[in-house]
């Protein structure tokens, strides 16, 4: 009987830890935030966890924001960081390599790797897939005076993402085939 109580007490004590760990999994994973924030002349940080996304979705227009609403309802979190620097050289290739290493696991697959030879611009898109379904996306876009990170946790439909692209005054995202056509001209 005493063992049973001990087991129950142990499980009860471990539950909050497990919940905290589960929440941490969807947190923004980049470790260099403090350093980059200190060096940036201007930065934007957006942290939206599942509860915040659900809350926000109640205040979105059912028609006007339908695409965005439909997309965020399924997500666990959206984390965005943009850093603007006064001059180039505020981050190193080693910094970017350290960030990339965090996604070089079996869960994450690099979908796009676009690294310029002179280091003027680097772009990476990593996708977390499971059973053919995209469950996460990490975007790194590095320019001499700008660094952008986007981390989306949860099931992502690329069509939804593309649909959203056309809704913010940003040109609609093109398919890879269109990109190839454009690049080969």
């Amino acid at each position: 009987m005493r063992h049973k109580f001990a087991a129950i007490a142990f499980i009860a004590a471990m539950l909050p830890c497990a919940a905290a760990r589960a929440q941490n999994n969807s947190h923004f994973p980049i470790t260099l935030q403090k350093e980059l924030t200190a060096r940036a002349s201007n930065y934007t940080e957006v942290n939206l966890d599942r509860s915040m996304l659900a809350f926000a979705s109640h205040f979105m227009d059912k028609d006007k924001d339908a695409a965005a609403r439909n997309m965020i309802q399924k997500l666990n979190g959206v984390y965005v960081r943009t850093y603007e620097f006064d001059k180039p050289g505020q981050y190193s290739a080693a910094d970017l390599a350290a960030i990339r290493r965090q996604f070089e696991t079996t869960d994450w697959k690099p979908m796009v790797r676009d690294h310029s030879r002179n280091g003027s611009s680097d772009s990476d898109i990593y996708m977390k897939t499971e059973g053919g379904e995209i469950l996460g996306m990490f975007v790194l876009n590095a320019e001499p005076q700008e660094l952008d990170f986007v981390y989306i946790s949860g099931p992502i439909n690329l069509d939804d993402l593309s649909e959203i692209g056309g809704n913010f005054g940003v040109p609609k995202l093109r398919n890879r085939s269109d990109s190839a056509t454009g690049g080969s001209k």
Partner: protein
Amino acid sequence: MADYHNQFDDLERDLCEGLVARPAPEGFAGKVLARVANQEAKESLPALFLHWRSALAAVLIAVALVTTGFWQHQRRQRIAGERARAQVMLALHITSNTLDSILQRQIQHPVKEAQP
């Protein structure tokens, strides 16, 4: 002296006449009792009315407080919701912009390394 006696007699006669016991008019006691009861009722009505007025005022104040509190809560929720919505839109805008700039770069410089 004779006048004095005459006056005294008159006074005595008046007194005797005045002090003769006369029966009260019919229904006098009933009327007195009815007037007393009516007066008591008039005095107690404002107190009762005042009591109900106070209760009604208290209820109205409570309703006003609850309504104001609810309205304030709703207003705060709406402001927080609009802020959250703006954050979502900003996040999606940056995401879309970043992806688009990557794709634009790929259009300008064909993909060097990519895994499907």
